[in-house]
């Protein structure tokens, strides 16, 4: 599909790398749930290039942007987490929402 045409094939982050999810709140539709914002995690895998949700609101979603799966320990997300230390939450995050941690 035209909106997913790659503009860059170089992924900024690699699997296993520690990243932090930006804690920002744009006033448009985006696909980062509030409960993971500001948290650190590890890139579980590098996914494909996709249109940006924020840009679809007003246009074509371009530039196509790298998507990642980020793995966060549950005990870090929720200080009072009742499960086990090994439990994880995994979420898809676009590259422009990530920075090295």
């Amino acid at each position, binding site marked *: *599909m035209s909106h*997913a045409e790659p503009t860059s094939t170089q992924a900024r982050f690699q699997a296993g790398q520690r990243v932090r999810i930006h804690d920002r709140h744009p006033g448009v539709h985006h*696909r*980062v*749930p509030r*409960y*993971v914002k500001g948290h650190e995690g590890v890139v579980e895998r590098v*996914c*494909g290039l*996709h249109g940006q*949700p924020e840009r679809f609101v007003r246009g074509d979603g371009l530039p196509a942007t790298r*998507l990642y*799966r980020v793995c966060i320990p*549950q005990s870090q*997300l*929720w200080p009072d987490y*009742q*499960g*086990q230390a*090994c*439990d*994880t*939450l*995994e*979420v*898809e*995050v*676009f590259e422009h929402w990530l920075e090295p941690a």
Partner: protein
Amino acid sequence: MSHDHDHNHDHDHDRTFQPDHPEPTSEAARVGLALRELLLEAGHYTRAEEAAMISRMQGASPDNGARLVARAWTDPAFKARLLDNGSDAITELGFDLRPAEFTVMENDDQEHNVIVCTLCSCYPRALLGMSPSWYKSRSYRSRLVREPRTVLAEFGVELSDDVHVRVHDSTAELRYMVLPQQPAGTEDWSEDRLRALVTRDSLIGTQRTLTATDTDADGAPFP
């Protein structure tokens, strides 16, 4: 549909969604219908393409997922391809969810996977059909990421403390399916027999254990 009645009205029967579909009454439904008509008039897709899409969506069911699972259980090479690149692997069985990235997470003795979409209710619908109503509920979506073991226990999933629970929040372009564990004692079963054991909830991860109850040795289709 007959058009020979002559009462006065301002709608156009040729444009109604389906012959037996009720006229839209809410503002949102009217906007949706108007949008569809504009898309058709502008040539973004044809009525035939729309009908084919509706037919395809309505034909989707958890049995498609059961086919993938039974194939993975009986064909290790297919299973490896399915886990490595689900989008490509399912085209071998005639399915296609692209441009969404179909992603399969495998359960084993040390790991349990479960799927949710906290932002809305993303689900591989074109493959598995409509998601269950609880999947779309505020309770499931808000609680599964916060207290997954409690929610899973409510579904009857018993997990020992050493099992790693992985919750997958389907936030963007990936669509997920869980590959459940093959029940013990079914190693020599045919693909069709195995397929009948797979449940919808086991594909979402709210069921962990499948039972090797052979209700139909010929391989009954998914109920």
